[in-house]
């Protein structure tokens, strides 16, 4: 039913690539990028919107510059990568806010960032992944980040807490609340399998759960 997750990558394989990349080896960087760029890009699409690709590029450049100072294991490297990405995304938010506040900023006239992101995502609306990212991006920021880091980046509670600068308990609660909101979202609650649609059509049942205060 479900496809293999993108986060199911072996950290043992990452170790060799990491060592090679520290020495400037092209194959090492290629392996790191191929394995971690997709989850990084999805995380950034949720937290940085249209700027995701630019922020991802900045993130990787900083990684290339500072990877010599990194002395941790592959798992720690994933935490380090997403922490850098989060900081770059925060910087991008500040720049975007300054552009909007500026007297000649054309974006200030056109509309909000959310609208721009929605337009961009609408182009690929039919893709289930884009649909999922759009719904997760509609959550409160702390819930969206917690869900993305745990589901897409494949990090555990402690690693996610380290990136977000929160206590593990707060991360678990944010994740739970995010999942509750997603489950209650009409596009999720009314999603039916072919068999479910047939049953629903034959009985006329509409058992979509109501959205709860979470």
């Amino acid at each position, binding site marked *: 039913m479900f*496809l293999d997750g993108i986060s199911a990558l072996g950290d043992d394989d990452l170790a060799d690539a990491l060592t090679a990349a520290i020495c400037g080896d092209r194959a090492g960087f290629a392996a790191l990028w*191929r394995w971690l760029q997709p989850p990084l890009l999805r995380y950034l699409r949720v937290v940085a919107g249209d700027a995701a690709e630019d922020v991802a590029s900045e993130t990787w450049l900083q990684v290339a510059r500072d990877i010599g100072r990194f002395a941790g294991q592959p798992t720690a490297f994933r935490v380090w990568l997403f922490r850098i990405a989060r900081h770059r995304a925060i910087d991008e938010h500040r720049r975007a806010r300054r552009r909007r506040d500026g007297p000649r900023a054309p974006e200030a006239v056109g509309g909000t960032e959310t609208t721009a992101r929605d337009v961009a995502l609408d182009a690929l609306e039919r893709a289930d992944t884009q649909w999922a990212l759009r719904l997760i991006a509609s959550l409160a920021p702390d819930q969206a980040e917690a869900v993305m880091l745990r589901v897409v980046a494949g990090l555990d509670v402690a690693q996610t807490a380290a990136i977000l600068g929160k206590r593990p308990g707060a991360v678990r609660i944010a994740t739970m609340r995010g999942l509750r909101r997603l489950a209650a979202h009409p596009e999720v609650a009314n999603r039916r399998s072919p068999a479910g649609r047939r049953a629903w059509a034959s009985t006329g049942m509409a058992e979509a759960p109501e959205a709860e205060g979470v």
Partner: protein
Amino acid sequence: MGRWFAFWRTIRARRADGIDLDKADRLVSDSDPDLNSDSDLDSSSAPGSSPGSDPPLYGLGLLLAAARAPAWAEELAGEKEAVTRLVEARRVALSDHPVRSHDAQGSTARKTVVVRLAATLASLLVVGAIVAAETGSLPDPVQQRAHDLFSLLGVPAPSTGRQPGRDPSGGVDPTPTAPSPTPTPEPNPTATGTLDPSADQVRALCQAWNEAGRDPNGATMENQAWRTLVALAGGRARVPGLCAAFFAAESATASSVPPTSHPGGGPANPSRTAGGNKKNGWS
């Protein structure tokens, strides 16, 4: 208690989504049985569902699976250019800060340890010298030099003469509490001629202080002389004790040695000084 627990479980089970903290952990790690059940086969056993319908979390399961789905081609586009930029950035960084070998890192660590040890030893030596100077454990020439040096830091001078209560002659020690920077003169004519040179300085300063009215703050005394006297005494409060002890020792010496045996600069009439001391209640 049992009824309350059953009620709580009932309320909990009535949540439409049934997502608590533990279930959320299972959902995000893709280990929850609701996500991995086949809706066509197992839906009839799912709580809150009817025969033929999907399990309650079917839509959420689809969403999470879509979020963690394998990479699509668009996400991996531009790999060649991206990796080229990374290799170039790494090359520049390496030229600025070459990667240190493990040996170099170990050498740096060893150097750090040696420097810290040396700093600790130097600190211990300085502290030890101060303590030794204060307790009078150093040889006399070194003791005097140390006293001259550390008295400026407020370290009190030790009593290098007889210890209080240990006078072999059974006499009363004139300095039971106040320290004296100079050895107490023995009632020996040969010893009186070898007074420490600083004794002249102390004598002159104490006389000046005495003639200035023995102001405890040295307000009526020449500034530099007062500072020197305070430094010699090891503190402002010790000046009266120092001068009292000094003049008492001088008077004791004068009673057995002719005044002419003293080096120059001493009081013209020690008995007068001693008498003055007694009059002032210093002894």
